[in-house]
């Protein structure tokens, strides 16, 4: 038991919890924006996986991880654009479209990765290494945990806070919230609901793509089939726990990152917890936390409902 406690307060564990939280912060904050604007995006997992894939392709082709990160954003945006075309342009069913995008992204990335790299073990590509923030990274305990992370972490925190400010303090944020609460009212004041929802969805796609890129370019340095492994589903549930506030995505994601980190650490420890059970932990905890949060928040009133100007 004391071994476990030592582990949970070790800087290595907390640093890995923070690292594992990064994709969830990005995808979660993106999904908050999309859902606030009224677009349910079940395809989050697919967007992350596509981003993880295009990120590695970009970094592999150019040898530059920053171009890889850009490619990851574009990969997520591409999948989001299909979702937008189906559910905004055609006003189709949002759940089914998202589901199809998860299947399609899994199939396409698996197929293309085998076409590009054959099936053999792939080499590491150009990737991100931790950035030591001068001064801060030397603070005992907190330094290694918070200030020796990959650039994705600092970006994720800035984006989540920035989106919180935009959502609650700007005209754009007001339009997003209007589009998800009462699209007819938004339309009546002359703002295009479709354009508002498109913007939110593409932001979500870009962030989910970068979140996937954070897994492939800052954790594993390569692409592996289905490497997001359900992180997108956890991020989807996380949004409800944040009560649709992008800033809260940081805190909630850190909690889930920690459960993920426990899963990873437990395997390294010599305790008799099988691999599959530790992998299961984040999903079970997500279910439990979601169960407590489900009735506490109120989803945007027009979430999941297509809107058509009549």
């Amino acid at each position, binding site marked *: 038991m004391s071994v476990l406690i030592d582990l949970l307060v070790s800087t290595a564990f907390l640093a890995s919890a923070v690292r594992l939280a990064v994709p969830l912060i990005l995808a979660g904050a993106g999904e908050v924006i999309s859902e606030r604007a009224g677009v*349910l995006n*079940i395809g989050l997992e697919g967007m992350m996986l596509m981003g993880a894939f295009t990120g590695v392709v970009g970094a592999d082709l150019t040898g530059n991880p920053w171009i890889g990160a850009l490619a990851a954003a574009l990969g997520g945006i591409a999948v989001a654009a*299909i979702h937008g075309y*189906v*559910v905004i*342009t*055609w*006003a*189709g*069913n*949002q*759940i*089914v*479209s998202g*589901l*199809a*995008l998860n*299947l*399609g*992204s*899994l*199939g*396409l990335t*698996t*197929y*293309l990765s*085998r*076409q590009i790299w054959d099936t053999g073990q792939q080499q590491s590509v150009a990737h991100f290494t931790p950035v030591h923030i001068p001064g801060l990274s030397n603070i005992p305990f907190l330094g290694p945990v918070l200030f020796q992370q990959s650039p994705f972490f600092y970006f994720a925190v800035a984006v989540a806070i920035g989106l919180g400010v935009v959502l609650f303090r700007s005209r754009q944020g007001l339009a997003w919230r209007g589009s998800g609460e009462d699209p007819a009212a938004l339309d009546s004041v002359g703002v295009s609901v479709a354009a508002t929802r498109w913007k939110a969805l593409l932001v979500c796609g870009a962030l989910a793509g970068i979140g996937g890129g954070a897994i492939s370019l800052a954790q594993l340095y390569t692409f592996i089939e289905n490497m997001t492994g*359900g992180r997108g*589903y956890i991020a*989807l*549930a996380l949004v*409800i726990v944040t009560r649709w506030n992008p800033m809260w995505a940081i805190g909630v994601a850190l909690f889930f990152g920690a459960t993920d980190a426990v899963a990873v650490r437990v395997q390294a420890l010599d305790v008799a917890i*099988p*691999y*599959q*059970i530790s*992998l*299961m932990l984040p*999903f*079970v905890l*997500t*279910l439990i936390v*979601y*169960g407590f949060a*489900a*009735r506490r928040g109120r*989803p945007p*009133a027009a979430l*999941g*409902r*297509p809107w*058509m100007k009549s």
Partner: protein
Amino acid sequence: MSRGRATGAMLLSNQGVVSVAVVALGVLLSVGLLAVTGADLGRALPQLAAGAVGSSAALEETLRQSIPIMLIGLGVAIGLRAGLFNIGGEGQLYVAALAAVVVAQALPLTVPLLAVPLIVMAGAAAGALWGGAAGWMRARLGMNEVITTILLNEIGFLLASYAVHGWLRDQAGGGYPWSHKIAVAFRLPVVRVGPLTIPLGVAIALAAALLIGILLERSHLGFRLRTLGDNPDAAAYSGSSVAGLTVLAMGLAGLLAGLAGVVELAGNQERLSDFFSPGYGFTAIAVALVGNARAGGVVIAALLFGALRAGASSMERIAQVPAATSLVAQAIIILLLVVARSDRLSGWIRRRRALAEALDTPEEAE
């Protein structure tokens, strides 16, 4: 009360022609995608057709592939009619197959007449529990069944994976993480019809389709389920227990997926592995949508998708086109179907019809 239950754009429409056209267009687009990415179409396409319907072995494979997606698809259809989205077929199938294997191995009985019902019940009960749990979480805790069934999929799969890597593992299994085969006496028999060897699972799936068809269209319970889907407030006013119906619909969907797991185990693979399902639970959603959530439609759609799966896997074996492309094909088909049944397209068609009728009406007023 009704908030969150309405899934947005309507998904069901009884235009069978459109559904078939959508599937055909989806297959064409997927083939185009294969061509763009440099697959050898000259070899791949004939193999797709040959693997689906080209021989009696191919037809048998098509039938075998149709059974699980037909059974799970019927469950998805029940959910859709009741306004619920069961995405959990995959997890329900895995826990059911796991329960069935455990019971099959634990039973001291070798008399199939006694043992087989127990095995089937164990699987069906496990599936019903996994599905019903999502129904309960929706009814009592207000948790969206789309998200809970997705999470339960991951958990159910990992449970089965844990079992076959650990205590259920056949150590002489050639290094594969899978269980021992279930006893020969517990396996489903096959039926010979002319040159074809038809798995008994086909009969089970068709019988289930008949029963579900009667339940949904002809029974009072079916009426209440459909009312719940169309208008939950009306269902509550008319005295139905919304919570009870929700748990029942999801439990029934889980039971059917569980049955699919047992039939797949006893009639096809004979043992559990962590590659037991090549995405049956997800294909079943496409099946239910293409089949318009009607029992008859699900049967036809399951045969169609079964043929597609059989063709794709033979294409993979012979022409080295990865079966992952069949996931892409399914995604394209589902997306086209969503567009074909979208609010905008159906509204446009309605307006065109109204216009055409107005123009056809002879002007007698003058």
